[in-house]
């Protein structure tokens, strides 16, 4: 597998798994408007995953669906940050902000890629991600505005920080540290990144659910 494919597949897996995780709030988000908005963000992420899988599929001679659903859980390259199941709003917002910020840094690098397909897709994704970032920034500001919100967000960031570091490679990581320091204004723990290649137990559970429909149908079934 080429370096290009490895890179695209890692990002696609991030977006698919995070989209899936975010969609777990559908119907139970704190209030109706947020329910609709967060579900829509989840759909966008899965849309990005599809576009990325299609680029990979063209190179490997397969399809986006096969890449998304026909691999075993160990084969996914998603960062452990997005694998975690944290159905608690402060943690959801902390992950949302940490991921979107890391993703922005990653997309900025991809937009200047020499590969026109990658640069083009990164620019397209970034135009949608801009609204995700706006949403995440506003929520962080909102939580930081009260004592209870700040305390809960800080606890969540502290727990997720080593995972957040694992989204980016060594070259891009310092920028995430700088951004997080500036925005969150809390002391970030010194931690080793929990990087790609680690598979949280929760990923296998998610995979069971995510692929159950596809596995229940005979190969080649059409919908």
């Amino acid at each position, binding site marked *: 597998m080429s370096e290009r494919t490895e890179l695209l597949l890692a990002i696609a897996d991030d977006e698919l798994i995070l989209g899936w995780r975010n969609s777990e709030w559908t119907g139970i988000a704190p209030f109706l*408007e947020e329910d609709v*908005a967060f579900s*829509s963000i989840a759909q966008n992420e899965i849309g990005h995953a599809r576009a990325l899988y299609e680029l990979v599929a063209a190179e490997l001679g397969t399809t986006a669906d096969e890449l998304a659903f026909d691999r075993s859980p160990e084969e996914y390259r998603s960062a452990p940050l997005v694998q975690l199941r944290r159905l608690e709003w402060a943690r959801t917002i902390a992950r949302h902000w940490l991921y979107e910020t890391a993703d922005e840094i990653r997309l900025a690098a991809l937009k200047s890629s020499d590969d026109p397909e990658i640069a083009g897709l990164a620019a397209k994704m970034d135009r949608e991600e801009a609204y995700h970032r*706006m949403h995440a920034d506003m929520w962080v500001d909102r939580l930081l505005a009260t004592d209870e919100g700040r305390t809960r967000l800080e606890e969540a960031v502290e727990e997720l920080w080593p995972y957040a570091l694992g989204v980016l490679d060594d070259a891009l990581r310092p920028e995430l540290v700088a951004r997080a320091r500036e925005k969150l204004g809390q002391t970030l723990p010194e931690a080793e990144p929990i990087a790609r290649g680690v598979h949280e137990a929760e990923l296998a559970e998610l995979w069971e659910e995510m692929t159950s429909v596809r596995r229940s149908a005979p190969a080649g079934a059409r919908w």
Partner: protein
Amino acid sequence: MVFEVFRQERKGQPFQHAGSVTAPNEEFAEIYAREQYGRRQESVALWLVPRDALHEIVEFPDEFEMKYRRVDGYSIKARLHEARERAGTLDMAPGAASE
């Protein structure tokens, strides 16, 4: 805060009331309105108006039932035709050239 949302389906068309969103401030309202009334490309523009900013008028007294102010049952088409005939401007009426 409640924001009333108006949406324009195509450029040049009038904005129509679409619904409302509840949000803590204008920035959140923008995100929520985008997701609820724009994500399917069903709008080319949205107006967000804080409900407090609306000046609502609901009472229209009509104590003397002045029916002559209303136009129901009044065929304006026939009367307009007569008036145009008198003035000799029938050929200038909208649609006249195509008839």
